[in-house]
């Protein structure tokens, strides 16, 4: 019944999806946190840059960003991210870069709403102890903000997992690219799409459940 699967590395394709997701998740978490820090910083230039970045990048379709990393960064500006000769690695890394740049906007805005849940007195008390801006942010405000936005961040992570399919546009051999190939070669549209749909649910459902549980467990009691 499943003989149409023969000769295709479905698990391998999903493994690429997982790698895209994890690397982009780590990247966007870091970059998004830095952006959020800039958006609440006392330096107008930093605030302005982060606000402009978020408002421009999150409003560009992801497909455009991913295609730009390939046609723009790679072909015009010769950005190869340390993999000039290895095409697979190059486009994989470019896809991670594009996904990170895009997803960081949503991480930043989630975190910023989390920062707003931290009572202003927490930062005042920290400043009164003699802590500087960066210390107040990293020791007092962000740890509480993160705990408040684990739920929204789970949404971002789930969206990111599914957004990795856009990397197919520049030929990264992840799940969606394989699905397209299989649909073209085999006359089994429904089973093939069902298998890939199920694959994504298997990836994202535990993410949501785990982070939902964490968000309750780590909630800051006031």
């Amino acid at each position, binding site marked *: 019944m499943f003989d149409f699967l023969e000769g295709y590395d479905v698990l391998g394709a999903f493994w690429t999806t997982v790698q895209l997701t994890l690397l982009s998740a780590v990247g966007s978490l870091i970059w998004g946190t830095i952006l959020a820090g800039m958006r609440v910083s006392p330096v107008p230039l930093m605030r302005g840059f982060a606000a402009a970045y978020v408002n421009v990048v999150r409003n560009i379709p992801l497909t455009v960003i991913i295609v730009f990393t390939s046609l723009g960064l790679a072909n015009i500006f010769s950005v190869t991210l340390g993999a000039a000769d290895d095409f697979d690695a190059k486009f994989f890394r470019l896809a991670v870069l594009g996904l990170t740049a895009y997803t960081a906007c949503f991480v930043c805005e989630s975190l910023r709403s989390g920062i707003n849940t931290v009572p202003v007195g*927490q930062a005042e*008390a920290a400043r*009164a*102890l003699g802590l500087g801006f960066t210390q107040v942010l990293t*020791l007092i405000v962000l740890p509480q903000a993160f*705990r408040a936005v684990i739920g929204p961040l789970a949404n971002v992570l789930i969206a990111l997992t599914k957004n990795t399919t856009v990397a197919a546009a520049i030929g990264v051999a992840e799940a969606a690219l394989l699905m397209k190939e299989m649909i073209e070669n085999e006359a089994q549209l429904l089973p093939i799409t069902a298998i890939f749909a199920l694959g994504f649910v298997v990836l994202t459902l535990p993410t949501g459940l785990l982070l939902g549980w964490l968000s309750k467990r780590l909630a800051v*009691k*006031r």
Partner: protein
Amino acid sequence: MTEVPVAKDAVAGTNDLVVLKSVNKHFGALHVLQDIDLTIARGEVVVVIGPSGSGKSTLCRTVNRLESVDSGSILIDGKPLPAEGRELARLRADVGMVFQSFNLFAHKTVLENVTLGQLKVRKTDKAKAEEKARALLDRVGVSTQADKYPAQLSGGQQQRVAIARALAMDPKVMLFDEPTSALDPEMINEVLEVMQQLARDGMTMVVVTHEMGFARSAANRVVFMADGRIVEEAAPDQFFSNPRSDRAKDFLSKILHH
């Protein structure tokens, strides 16, 4: 040779720890601090009282620049208060602050609350910081709560931890911004007792409060504010029994009846 010690005395001998000179501040159209001149000597306990909206909390918060001022100067231990940055942070470390709403760090245990400033600002090593924190928690009577989170403590306990947190920095002066206003009546005394002890130990204190009993018993001086101005300054006995200004008479007549 005799000039040297004289000159030294003139600098180090100034007993003024906090000096505010013609300080003005506006909140939009509201002129919340109007030409405030106030000098607090080393070891002095000054209680600031007055009706709501008189600017007494704002005054307290300007001393460590949680509120900026529009004009005038503030000196702490002879040094002008820096506008921002590292210098300001260093100065704030020497000024302890206790808030109306406690503001204990909600994601840290009681012990971590008291060690944080020592570790991150004073760069004390961990063992020493914890030892000092435990001693201070013991002093304010909450040593058994060290490993709990703030939300697990009563208001009075939280406020005493907040006092310990401020004391852990070895501050030159302590600011209390209505420390008992958010407390249940039966918890007010446990906090006031800690403050009284602190006053007896010679700590320089600025206390914004509605606790007239504390003002009477612990203050060296009462500062009465109304409408953004210091209306009257006097020793507590004199102020409560024989206020000079009509505004103060009016205020006291409303609160001392029952």
